[in-house]
């Protein structure tokens, strides 16, 4: 891990790291755990019934004929569920035991179906009707109780503040491609100016370090990039990864290779009230590429990694008049990573008959989505059930261990 720092020749610094006053050698902090957790929040309510299709339910085709493209290939998983074509690149992960799904799941939130409230509850990790949503996020509460956590143990990546990581627990926020607009000389003068004010001095030093980490080593060797390229060509929905999302993924990969153990970011554009096919082809394609980018970049660390893909709620079982769907309740969650005991579909299937639906319109949730996240953290980080049910996810009934990890 220390090796990368020896060879910093970042253009931003304009000089070798050893001489730069803005980069001081980091002491190797021992991270609290070996496992890596990545949480991806999909904002806008992903249609779980389309992302992970219950083709084995006899009622599905009738409900969804307005959307399903005839003659399309099925990307079957286990004989009951199949993946949306946009997620087809992840089928090999399922086969390799590195992908699982949890279906008919949601937070305890019911009825109002507000994106804003739904996301707040998803990230706060708690809700009771008439009660308050905690101002801190569940991931931050993990950081509050775990020993040995430092500022760079957990990163929230992206422009906006993530509720998921907000709170008193130490964490860092970073916007990829942040550079310091300083020539080498200006940088040295600034370091002089900051020297006597510890708050500014330390923050600027850390900024310089993070930037130097990102620029320091290429994410992957050239042959891996070529292999990635051919994987991306086969996907529906256009060129593989949006530039910004690509930068986020690169940054996450970079940091997880150093002291970081937790990273969170969000992807938007899932509120498919109309034109769902085009939107999900694009969005799910991008999600698949993001996950594969993480796998390719993390190398051996992928074997210790779990990626959770969560959204605030699902969408209506029926298609609306605009070839889309409206806000619902139960949805799907994806899990990926080498740490998984993958190739499994979790969640009791409630059925799609009218009487099986929640409020006659939505997929009925049969398990609290927090339970999956909870069991992952228990297995990966050794968090106790008591802490999970009282502190991290107040009000959660953790329930039986579904055996998510190896």
């Amino acid at each position, binding site marked *: 891990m220390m090796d990368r720092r020896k060879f910093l020749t970042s253009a931003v610094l304009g000089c070798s790291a050893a001489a730069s006053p803005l980069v001081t050698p980091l002491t190797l902090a021992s991270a609290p755990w070996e496992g890596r957790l990545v949480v991806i929040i999909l904002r806008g309510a992903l249609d779980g019934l389309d992302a992970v299709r219950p083709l084995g339910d006899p009622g599905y085709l009738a409900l969804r004929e307005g959307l399903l493209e005839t003659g399309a290939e099925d990307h079957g998983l286990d004989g009951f569920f199949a993946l949306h074509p946009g997620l087809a690149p992840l089928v090999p992960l399922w086969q390799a035991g590195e992908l699982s799904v949890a279906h008919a799941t949601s937070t305890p939130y019911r009825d109002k179906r507000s994106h*804003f409230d739904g996301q707040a509850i998803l990230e706060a990790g708690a809700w009771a009707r*008439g009660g308050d949503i905690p*101002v801190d996020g569940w991931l931050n509460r993990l950081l509050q109780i775990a020993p040995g956590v430092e500022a760079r143990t957990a990163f929230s990546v992206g*422009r*906006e*503040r993530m509720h998921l990581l*907000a709170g008193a627990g130490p964490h*860092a*926020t*970073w*916007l990829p491609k*942040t*550079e*310091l*607009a*300083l*020539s080498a*000389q*200006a940088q040295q*003068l*600034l370091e*002089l*100016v*900051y*020297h*006597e*004010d510890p*708050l*500014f001095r330390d*923050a*600027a030093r*850390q*900024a310089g370090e*993070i*930037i130097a980490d990102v620029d320091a080593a290429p994410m992957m060797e050239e042959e891996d990039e070529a292999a990635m390229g051919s994987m991306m060509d086969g996907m529906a929905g256009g060129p593989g990864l949006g530039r910004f999302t690509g930068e986020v993924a690169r940054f996450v990969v970079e940091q997880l290779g150093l002291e970081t153990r937790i990273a969170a970011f969000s992807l938007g554009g899932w509120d498919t009230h109309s034109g769902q096919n085009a939107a999900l082809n694009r969005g799910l394609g991008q999600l698949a590429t993001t996950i594969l980018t993480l796998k390719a970049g993390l190398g051996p660390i992928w074997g210790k990694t779990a990626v959770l893909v969560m959204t605030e709620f699902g969408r209506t079982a029926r298609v609306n*008049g*605009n070839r889309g769907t409206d806000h619902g309740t139960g949805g799907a969650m994806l899990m990926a990573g080498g740490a998984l005991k993958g190739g499994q579909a979790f969640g009791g299937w409630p059925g799609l008959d009218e009487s099986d639906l929640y409020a006659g319109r939505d997929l009925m949730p049969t398990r609290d989505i927090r339970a999956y996240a909870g069991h992952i953290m228990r297995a990966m980080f050794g968090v106790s059930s008591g802490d999970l049910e009282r502190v991290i996810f107040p009000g959660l009934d953790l329930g039986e261990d579904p055996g998510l990890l190896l």
Partner: protein
Amino acid sequence: MRFDPLTAVTRFGGGPSPLHALPTTASDMLDEAREDPFAGAHPFTTTDDFVASEALLAELRSARRNSRGTAEREANDEAFAEARRAAQARANDDLKRSFLRQAGLAYGLRERLVAFWSDHFAAGGRGGAADRLAALTLTSDAIRPHVMGSFTEMLRAVVRHPVMLRYLDQVRSMGPNSRVGRRRDNAGLNENLARELLELHTLGVGAPYDQRDVRELAELLTGLTVERGEGFIFREDFVEPGAEEVLGQTYGGRGKPGGLVPIDAVLDDLARHPATADHIARKLAVHFVSDTPDPALVAHVAARFRETGGDLAEVAAALLEHPGAWDLTRRNVKWPALYIASSLRALGLGAAEVSALDPRRVHQLIRRPLEGMGQPWTEPPDPAGFEEADPSWITPQAVAARINWAMRSPARLTDALPDPREMLRLVAGDRAPGELTFAVGAAEDRKVGVGLVLASPTFQRV
């Protein structure tokens, strides 16, 4: 009292500007703060404007939906998109109007007070774009008129404002035994507004109130609500019948006047409660001076608040006159909005220059940087407002954002960058640390020199 002109304008105003002489007394600053000289030429969007605009958008949205599959659909889509663009433009213009004032005033105490009170009564961060636009009108109509007036009047105006009523869920609150409450299964009391009134707006969290007071106050507040197209209204059929007791006082009840009368009465009493004076005084000291203010300063301001029944001009005077406000060993880090505004001033931009910025530049040079520095415009993280503690503002990400702004933005804001050494003298007087003076002198060009001044802790602290 040690009034120091440079500290005065830095700590209590918008910061020094080459366009204006420094104030000579506290009265200079207080007198200027009593009025808004830009109100005539640059009025803000009003609450009524917003209410009308929101109703229009709702109508156009319906028209759009109902005309699906018909010939009118496209025209309706366009009308809706146009109305939404207009609303967005109005909000962007309000951001510019705010910075125009901050840049254009001679000293700027009034705008600092507006920022303080808007944050004290934080609202609007939740919800989508529509709510963010609305939050500006809370500041314009409920806060601005009262910043040098009466705290009670401000409190009353805030509690009647549609933005606050929605933000704290008062619109969902109705008395379980009210006429409507009895008919509906899931109608009930929502305590958010009552709780935040006590915890955040008046008494403060440590004060002697309990859950019963919160509930009673929530019952008393029933009736306050918002109706689309109308704004604030009072609905008698939401009112929980009966008297309520809050902090030992009884309000309303049989034979007593109803409607807003008992509500205004409890607001008056809360405003006058001794704990409120302490709470507000401490917040002012923490906001303007230091995260750890001199307790004597806080006591002095609290006493003035109590003696004058919350006369905010007097309270501001008390803040400025106490020696504890002038301690140069304790200096807060500027909030991003103040950092940018004081930078505009230091660069010699005045009202005319800010007014001339087109929407794109306002977005690139003010709005986006504010987000990057952690203070998205009108989006406080929660009802308690933005953080005061310095470490919240100087994180690696945020300091990088400030440094980058200092290095890149001045040249985009003005063709005539000042001589960095003169700029340093303007903002630091004879108090610039030796290393800063050296660094500014050693800079390879004006751009870097100006950037070093603006990025320096000397400039970033008040």
